[in-house]
């Protein structure tokens, strides 16, 4: 579904990503984790073809980037918790625009179903400016899942959601993943959520993959009881170590 090898990205003198290899298989739910500045968002942007890597390559839904970008992105959905909804559009107009961009027929039915999946059918006629930040995030997730993509890429999707709504989002994503076999690649700072949603976690630190495996395996490889402790462990290292480290990847699985 997604393969990336040797991704490197530097902004001016700062190395954001220092050689990331990543693979997500069909139907797999993977979390890309790490402290702020670990290189998660830059990695996601390179995987989506929005940022050109300095080194390395990406194969997205069987298409090599950047040549196959258009064909690949037709089968990928993206949402980020920090992106607003276009202000002058009603929710249904915003979703209709993206349905058209993905070439969907019968978009009215698909939009209604997608809104209901996340329990926000009542927001269809609301303007972007009338929504709370949590509601805007939900609409963004609906947008990302509208065309039933083979891969969903979500950057901090539940950052502004209350626990009840975040739970509804997780249920919606799990349902979609199970029904359609969609793979999921998600970044989050909520380790409890990751443990509920994802079967595999990849930890980044200083632009490198430092752990890759199931949540339990990765926690054990660091000698901790949960991902929260692994996160704190790495955040402490991030503060203490130079920018580009040489740590070897801790494999949760042989």
């Amino acid at each position, binding site marked *: 579904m997604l393969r990336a090898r040797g991704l490197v*990205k530097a*902004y001016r003198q700062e190395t954001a990503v220092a050689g990331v290899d990543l693979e997500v298989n069909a139907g797999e739910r993977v979390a890309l984790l790490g402290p702020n500045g670990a290189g998660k*968002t*830059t990695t996601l*942007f390179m995987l*989506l*073809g*929005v*940022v*050109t890597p300095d080194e390395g390559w990406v194969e997205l839904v069987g298409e090599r980037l950047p040549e196959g970008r*258009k*064909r690949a*992105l*037709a089968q*990928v959905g*993206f949402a*980020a918790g*920090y*992106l*607003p909804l*276009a*202000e*002058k*559009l009603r929710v249904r*107009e915003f979703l*209709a*625009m*993206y349905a*058209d*961009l*993905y*070439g*969907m*027929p019968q978009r009215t039915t*698909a939009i209604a179903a997608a809104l209901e999946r996340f329990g926000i059918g009542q927001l269809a006629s609301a*303007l972007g400016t009338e929504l709370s930040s949590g509601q805007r995030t939900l609409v*963004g997730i609906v*947008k990302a899942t509208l*065309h*039933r993509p*083979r891969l969903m*890429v979500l950057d901090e999707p539940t950052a502004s959601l209350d626990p009840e709504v975040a739970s509804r989002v997780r249920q919606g994503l799990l349902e979609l993943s199970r*029904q*359609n*076999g*969609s793979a999921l690649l998600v970044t989050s700072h909520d380790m409890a959520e990751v443990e509920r949603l994802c079967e595999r976690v990849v930890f980044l630190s200083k632009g490198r993959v430092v752990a890759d495996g199931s949540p339990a395996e990765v926690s054990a490889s660091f000698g901790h009881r949960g991902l929260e402790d692994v996160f704190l462990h790495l955040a402490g290292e991030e503060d203490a170590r130079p920018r580009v480290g040489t740590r070897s990847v801790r494999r949760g699985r042989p």
Partner: protein
Amino acid sequence: MTVLSMPGHGRAGEAARAWQRVRAIARRHAYVLARSPHRLFDVTLWPLVDVLLFGSLGVFVSHHRGSGSIAFAYLLSGIVLWHVVYQSQIALSTGLLEETWSRNMLNLMVTPMSELEYALGVMLFGMVKLFVGVGVAAATAAAFYAFDVTTLGFDILPVAAVLLLVGWVIALFVIGIVLRFGSGAEALAWGILFMVMPLSGVFYPTRALPAFLQPLAVALPTTHAFAAGRALLDHQGLQWGQLAIAGLSTLALLVVAVAFVSAMLGLFRKRGYVTRYT
């Protein structure tokens, strides 16, 4: 896995999807215009104010100079034709700016839409703005000054077509600069026209310019297009020579503008400038 039935496969299917994307972008900008009264000024109030300004100036000149009536016609036809450049340029460049203002660029960049489809969508919407804006200018000239643009006949259409293309070319340069330097460069979307306007002989032959500026004026395609427009007022018929110079130099500039935008888009992706709008 559930597979959605997309419109047919092959070239016809892809062409249908491309057209669907183009219309989606045009519709998106139409919603924004309809719900932003201040943006309606571009196609309603400004054309009206411009025609009032230059029409009244023309009336004043015609009362005090022997050549007043032709100056009056130059001023009014000039401002109506100028709105072809203005509307096409503003529609395309502010189309991209709208995506930066609403932080929608990242969302658009992760869809299967190509840059060309996006530009065509904004241009399609821009054509609607163009017809409304130029229509308001022409109607104001007719209503307030009894100046009927249609008396210039169909010969005005190729002149307007070249000016339309010039507007898009200028917009592409503005977009390239905004991609490179960010929203700080957005003042160019409006400001650049104020540099082009006096040099293009919109209201007067370029020999009226200071001598040192005249070679620069001659190099601009707009100069030749407006000269062709004035020739129509002077009953000299369509000046194909002037129009050919204007058209060919505009096409040459279009090639340069497309190459410039492509290079800036490459830089935008390479340097990760999308993060400016997230």
